[in-house]
């Protein structure tokens, strides 16, 4: 299939999730953010806006690209580092 949903795309990618999240979103800083840029720019759609205005982040299928912290307009809202050695995304055919 040429046209695919994001869910179908994500099933083609191999991940070895780290035991602990390598990205931590600071809810206190995000709460009064109105832009929620992270929700749009993430290539894996890992940021969700909850009904109470906070951001839920799932680190397990992260490409480690860095787009979220570059796009975020809130200083210190996204604490970002690489996952542990050998963990995280592992491309095979790209």
């Amino acid at each position: 299939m040429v046209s695919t949903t994001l869910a179908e795309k994500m099933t083609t990618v191999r991940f070895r999730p780290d035991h602990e999240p390598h990205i931590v979103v600071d809810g206190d800083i995000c709460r009064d953010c109105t832009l929620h840029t992270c929700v749009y720019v993430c290539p894996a759609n890992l940021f969700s806006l909850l009904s109470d205005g906070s951001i839920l982040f799932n680190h397990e299928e992260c490409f480690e690209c860095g787009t979220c912290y570059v796009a975020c307009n809130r200083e210190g809202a996204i604490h970002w580092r690489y996952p542990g050695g050998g963990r995280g995304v592992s491309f095979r055919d790209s």
Partner: protein
Amino acid sequence: MVAGAGPAGSAAALVLARAGRSVLLLERGEFPGSKNVSGAAIYGPDVLAELIPAFWETAPIERVLTRRVICVTSEESSLSLDFATRRFASPPYNAFSVLRPRFDRWLADQAVAAGATLLNETVADELLRDATGRVRGVRVRRPDGDIEAPVVIAADGVNSFLARGVGLQRELGGHDLSVGVKEVLAVDRGVLEERFHLEAGEGVTYEFLGSVTGDVAGGSFLYTNRESLSLGVIVEIASLAEHRVRPYELLERFKAHPTVAPLVRGGSLVEYSAHMVPEAGQAMLATLAGDGVLVAGDAAGLCFATGLYLEGINYAIASGRAAGEAAAEALAAGDTSAAGLAGYERRLEERGVLPDFRRFRMAPRFIMGERMQRLYPEIVTGVAERVLRSQGGRPKQKLLPAVTDEVRRSGVPIRRLLRDLWEGGRAFGW
């Protein structure tokens, strides 16, 4: 010590190992290339051939690129510049398509064969410094993870926490960096060669500008591999954020464009991927050397992306090689201060890498501008349609009135257009 086993790091490690130095090459992934994504095409193969003669005979090359298409798109139309030559079909070649997890792994293996020690699954978190600020090693995320070295080459990629941590690279923003999302689609080899009019083993690259990325500043690409296509969309992060569009939706939009859809028909998804690209050129070059440290490849912003030229791997290899040579020279002379490592910048200057960045310094911003992205592609395809559409019995327009009519329709003031032509000329022409 070299942090990062991409093209820059592996080239540096190869050169240092050949100079008889003991080299530790750190890689955070399961294997070199497992975290790396680009188109991917290697232009300027002479850069690598100087290190590994006739590398194309042993390296995992997908196709020899003999044809290049630059395609300007509007919603329903496209106008292409299609260049093909037999001159690119024989050694030393002009470019190859590759798959990074295979190619990068192979290049790191060459460094290992020359004597470098590759340590996979090892994250370099920060540079260690002594009281004077001199870099003395790397802190890796392992038990007892402080590793000392007289010189560290930071080739840790576009996010470069190492270079930023010691102030050699500034904090980068959404205008400096683009994000690329990519798919590899499997296509039968015979179908692929027929569809793209290719001789066996040869390949084509397409680059697209205009409506394929919607209102978002950027472009897209489609490269042929042996039995697959690599295609993707690369967009400026600031523009993506401003328009609140999801990158994978742009990817779907790209594949559905009437010019692209027949090219990708029947392809089945093999792997989806994403990566950031340092696209600001001269404006984001790092300070290349500090006491005990050199910065190479994407970490230094040494990725040449001007729209017309989209070359990162060869500049990475050129910078890694220069860094390796400069480090070996500094070690032999017993002076690994920034002054002792000045041979790095001198080599990049002499070999034309830094002059290229200066010469095309205006190109990235020019190509990302709104008129270049949206209005001019519409004008260009509009003029083409006016000229090429059969008029039946009605009078035909000459070229100049066709252009002025399309410019008027686009709403771009003629003075603005002339200024853009001038700026485009300065960026690319003279």
